[in-house]
């Protein structure tokens, strides 16, 4: 059963996933600690992918694939023909920089899909990244959230420009769909509805 929710023409439904997300191979990462506590979040701009990982990433020979940003950039030549066919999308994590993608791919709309991996529910950078991709960089195609995606983020993700949500595998996407409509008339302008409520409704003279 698919756990992918997509919004198409304003209607959300659970659909089959055409895309395969390509993962970097696991690496032995040094456990980072501060004051005895294991560090949970990576800092924005922090480089965490090794050359070895990029080289060792297994890319399926056929089908539609979403590859890690570092692989997309470093192994672009190898993927060129599939990119031209529209069979390659990119994913990146919340600490990675959009600029890194722009340097490689000036026209983001050449990408059929961009996915952002949110490692932890509490990581709200994903909302700013979605907003920037839609408003600053004019990205128009599928924008997907995956990772620790639970129903109580969906409303905010939708408002931040996401139209595709891969709900965490142990949770029901069917239950989660309802949360896309938690609030009917949000106050502030955002990606999905740029006008704030005071410009959308006549709230009295």
């Amino acid at each position: 059963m698919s756990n992918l929710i997509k919004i198409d023409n304003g209607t959300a439904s659970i659909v089959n996933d055409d895309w395969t997300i390509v993962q970097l191979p696991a690496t032995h990462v040094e456990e980072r600690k501060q004051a005895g506590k294991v560090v949970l979040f990576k800092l924005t701009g922090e480089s965490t992918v090794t050359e070895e990982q990029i080289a060792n990433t297994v890319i399926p020979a056929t089908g539609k694939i979403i590859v890690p940003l570092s692989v997309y950039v470093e192994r672009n030549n190898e993927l060129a023909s599939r990119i031209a066919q529209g069979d390659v999308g990119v994913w990146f994590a919340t600490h990675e920089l959009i600029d890194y993608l722009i340097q490689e791919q000036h026209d983001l709309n050449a990408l059929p899909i961009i996915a952002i991996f949110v490692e932890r529910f509490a990581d709200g950078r994903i909302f700013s990244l979605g907003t920037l991709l839609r408003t600053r960089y004019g990205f128009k195609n599928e924008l997907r959230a995956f990772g620790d995606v639970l129903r109580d983020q969906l409303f905010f993700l939708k408002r931040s420009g996401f139209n595709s949500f891969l709900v965490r595998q142990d949770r029901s996407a069917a239950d989660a769909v309802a949360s896309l409509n938690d609030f009917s008339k949000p106050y502030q302008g955002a990606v999905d509805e740029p006008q704030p409520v005071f410009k959308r409704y006549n709230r009295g003279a």
Partner: protein
Amino acid sequence: MYKYDEIDQQIVDERVAQYRDQVRRYLAGELTEDEFRPLRLQNGLYIQRQAPMLRIAVPYGMLSSKQLRKLGDIAKKYDKGYGHFSTRQNLQLNWPKLEDTPDILAELATVEMHAIQTSGNCIRNITTDQFVGVAPDEVIDPRAMAEIIRQWSTFHPEFALLPRKFKIAVSGTKQDRAIVQAHDIGLEFYRDSNNKVAVKVWVGGGLGRTPILGSVIREHLDWQHALTYCEAIIRVYNLHGRRDNMYKARIKILTKALGINEFRNQVEAEWTHLKDNANTITEAELARVARHFEAMPYESLPDNDAGFDAAVASNPAFAAWVKRCVHAHKQPGYRAVTLSLKPHGSAPGDITSEQMWAVADLADQFSFGELRSSHEQNLILADVKQGDLFTLWEKARANGLATPNIGLLTDIICCPGGDFCSLANAKSIPIAKAIQMKFDDLDYLHDIGDIELNISGCMNACGHHHIGHIGILGVDKDGSEWYQVTIGGKQGNDASLGTVIGRAFSAEEMPGVVQKLIEVYVKERTPEERFIDTVRRLGVPPFKAHVYAKDEVTA
């Protein structure tokens, strides 16, 4: 004050439904403890030592009598018959049941109240001066802007999960009473040289573990751009603020790390894209919201009431109350009144259901049915006729709300501390009570005069101890509770952070330590000096020497 329309009402109603379902899922095991935590926190629900604590939002401190009556009802029905006003002008219930919290929110929604974003890593309640709208030194009444910011920040999708909590204060007075320099963003409204409303924007202030006063990021911003400029600031913070260490996650750490100039450059670069976007505030919207805050239908009165003057002259107890609890008003013949929630020997900021109902009645009878909460944890009736003050005093006194100690040593600002809060290192309420009992002589208190004493039970600084003239911080040393003392902190335009005087003290020593600090002041002061002035003139050494004098003898 602001009244909801159908849109506002629908949002709080939908929030109740959303939260009710979140609680249901948690109780059914569909949400883990870790997953439920950020959800409940954004609804003001903490899991505390004894029971959950629910923090109810009082936007910029404004309450109607109807709302206060309902809060009294809720405290009676779902709690132990009392509530606690916090230093963020909110009301906290210390003993609700988790299962009851959706019903409490549903009841709050019936009186246009909620608990949205009163905790968690999001934009918190907007705070301001408790004398907003009536203070003689007010240049701009910032309540309409505060309400516009409240609406904009409510469920702002981009800023729903920030690195850490985010606090905004607004002010529009010559003398700052909203501590704008101690907030993540402080918006100081003023009239510029063209007589237009403008904003001076402060950023990166905060108390807590790393106390820092804010820096000015922009001297002049047209009011229309207040929201988009905040969006630029918070976007830079959201993307670049630290998330790997919660103690270094506030915006003040980012602004310090980058330096205010680099931070400003990044914000201004971001703002070039956001300026003039749809969230730019229109004249029409400001006018719509401002209508809710128009001046009360005041009577035309002389500024002096003969009956009042006579009562002051003949009744020393009334005169003492007037001196401390009655404040100037911009309208002739009217005064603002502080109802003290600091009777000696009880928890600062606590109020019973019966008192809430009584205050609601007083507000209806004497102050147009409205009141305010202050960050000093008292309640204010803002629009009282001078001729009504004596009657009001008698009724307030009968309800234990007329302790004439506002601005005095026993008007202690105090967090709930280790009695309730699971973050605390030490108890704070018993310290406050012990100091109040030690200084239970009103004549002596009045002689000591204006002084602010703040107590926090841990370095999160909910009691704002860094900006107390005397600040007391509970610390944990090898599992026992100790208290570190600072002096010389101050709120206001000339804000400063206090200096630690030396080694920490046990709880039993604390009243004596405060006594010694006061002794130095009384001995050294010039006739015009307040405690803070003497500290600023002399510095810490004479105070330190006297407090630790005995140590030196035995050492």
